[in-house]
């Protein structure tokens, strides 16, 4: 135990003096998430505000054929401007991206309207371009509602109630709570926590084998009267400490960042108070041992520091896979999922953030199974630390 503590203390002191470790544990890991998150949130807020407030400029060919329609469009925040020469030029302009959407009103428009024949209007847009499609949708909606108004007026003129045109009235009832709506976006958070956790311990894990070997300090330390188990456990303990620090900072920075993000504008109120932060920390703690031993294990097979870094960046991505799969399939928490590390933490965190009751049995299984897998990996690490191939 004394040896273990000695190794632990030395590793902590050593790594606190190492800029690279500090940068990844205390800056990269914790800040990467909130920054990316703030960026994504701001982008989506900007976009959602776009729709209603921004005036849309739409080139219209043949404005003179439909003065009433033009007036109607302007009243719906759509600025009608002069467009290309003719229809062919308009198609070309949309193809090349010079315009997102162009409206073409043929000469016959007024005539057809007067004769109660469906009047032709062309809406030229590129459906593959999602950004442009948003604008096209606005114009389409405006044209459609103008058409509806005209229809209603014609019916009234013939003494028929416009209600006959609306046999069904559809009303959207959204039952998602504001917290629930946040879950989609906030589901990303759990990965950032796991990412920060792993980043915090990455350099220590490499140092345990590849680093010590490359520096030439592995053989001397192995020739000391200490067992390799003690060395290994001391180093894994130090790795865990750095991971815990990184996680705490990450949780803290999210806690602060969320306070400043205008999430209400997106209809989201995530449940991420001090209590949730604390619960999330406890929930992710078992993942520390697993992460530390997994990274140490992977690094122990590599020949050099560089090679270890390459492989560990793969390990950093690995926990995303289960998260990605459940996000795509939108799976609900199930008992068997709780045996899968990273997936179980993700699902439980999402529940917490959505402010839904957390299934305690699920939480217990998540904690215990993650701990068990971590302990198993640590045992394998210790076994591997004894083989001669370690010396490289």
């Amino acid at each position, binding site marked *: 135990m004394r*040896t273990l503590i*000695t190794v632990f203390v030395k590793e902590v002191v*050593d790594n606190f003096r190492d800029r690279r470790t500090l940068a990844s544990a205390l800056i990269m890991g914790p800040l990467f998430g909130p920054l990316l998150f703030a960026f994504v949130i701001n982008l989506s807020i900007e976009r959602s505000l776009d729709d209603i407030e921004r005036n849309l400029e739409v080139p219209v060919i043949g404005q003179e054929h439909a003065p009433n329609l033009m007036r109607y469009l302007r009243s719906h925040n759509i600025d009608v401007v002069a467009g290309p020469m003719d229809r062919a030029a308009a198609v070309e302009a949309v193809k090349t991206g010079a315009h997102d959407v162009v409206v073409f009103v043929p000469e016959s428009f007024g005539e057809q309207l007067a004769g109660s024949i469906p009047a032709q209007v062309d809406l030229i847009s590129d459906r593959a371009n999602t950004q442009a499609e948003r604008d096209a949708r606005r114009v389409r909606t405006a044209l459609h509602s103008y058409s509806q108004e005209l229809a209603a007026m014609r019916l009234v003129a013939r003494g028929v109630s416009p209600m006959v045109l609306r046999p069904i009235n559809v009303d959207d009832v959204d039952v998602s709570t504001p917290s629930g709506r946040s879950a989609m976006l906030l589901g990303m958070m759990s990965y950032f926590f796991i990412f920060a956790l792993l980043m915090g311990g990455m350099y220590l894990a490499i140092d345990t084998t590849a680093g010590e070997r490359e520096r030439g300090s592995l*053989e*001397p330390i192995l020739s000391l*009267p200490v067992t390799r188990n003690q060395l290994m456990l001391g180093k894994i303990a130090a790795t865990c400490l750095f991971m815990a620090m990184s996680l705490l900072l990450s949780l803290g920075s999210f806690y602060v960042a969320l306070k400043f993000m205008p999430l209400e504008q997106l209809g989201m109120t995530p449940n991420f108070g001090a209590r949730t932060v604390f619960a999330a920390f406890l929930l992710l703690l078992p993942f520390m041992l697993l992460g530390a031993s997994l990274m140490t294990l992977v690094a122990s097979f590599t020949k050099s520091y560089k090679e270890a870094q390459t492989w560990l960046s793969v390990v950093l991505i690995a926990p995303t896979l289960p998260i990605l799969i459940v996000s795509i399939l939108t799976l609900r928490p199930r008992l068997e999922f709780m045996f899968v590390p990273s997936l179980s933490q993700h699902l439980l965190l999402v529940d917490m953030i959505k402010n839904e009751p957390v299934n305690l049995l699920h939480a217990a299984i998540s904690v215990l199974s993650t701990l068990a897998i971590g302990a198993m990996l640590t045992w394998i690490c210790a076994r591997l630390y004894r083989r*001669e191939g370690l*010396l490289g």
Partner: protein
Amino acid sequence: MIRVNDIYKSFGKIRAVQGVSFDAPDGKITGLLGPNGAGKSTTLRILYTVLKPDQGSASIDGADVVTASLQARQRIGALPHGAGLYPHLTARENIAYYAKLCGLDDHTLQERVESIVDLLEIGDFAERRSKGFSHGQRTKVALARALVHNPQNIILDEPSNGLDVMATRSLRDLILKLKDAGRCVLFSSHVMQEVAALCDDIVIIANGKVAIDDSADGIRQRTGRDDLEDAFVRAIEMVGPE
């Protein structure tokens, strides 16, 4: 006292050591001499227990390096080839870390670190982080931490490699001091003169086998060569190719 009894070690197809035996007694300096790739380092690595012999046995003060490796390690101070320090720790911290791992209590630890810092003249750079150390400074600190727990047996793998004249001299003085203190010193080298000037006993290794094990004078006699370098070459020829 180090005993090596007919050890073998192969790495895949390469047979690094093939039946090496010798004794390194207390109060004597034993030199392990041989060309590059002769099996010197492998023999020493087996002695400081990071490798296990495929066959044969070796013991440190009676403790077998395989079955009682922890006890064996308690009795040795080893300086592996190209030993590295922790760059973010100062020279003194590097030494103290090893002392602590060797189980010295705080009081003894302070004393031992002080005395070894004095002995190896590390004082000037003891408080500096070892990141920018010269090769000589690094070797001194690595040597100091190997000796900090006052081991009876000292194993040095090519300690003079890359050292300048002054550093080599102080290393030689240190080895002689250790001998006078009754320690068993075993070191490897490929420099004949260095070994001849220091060693009571010289073990010449070539192709993983012991070519000759004798004093400098004995080697001259048995090879029939007056010049030690010629004697060295002759001894290696006597083993012959694999």
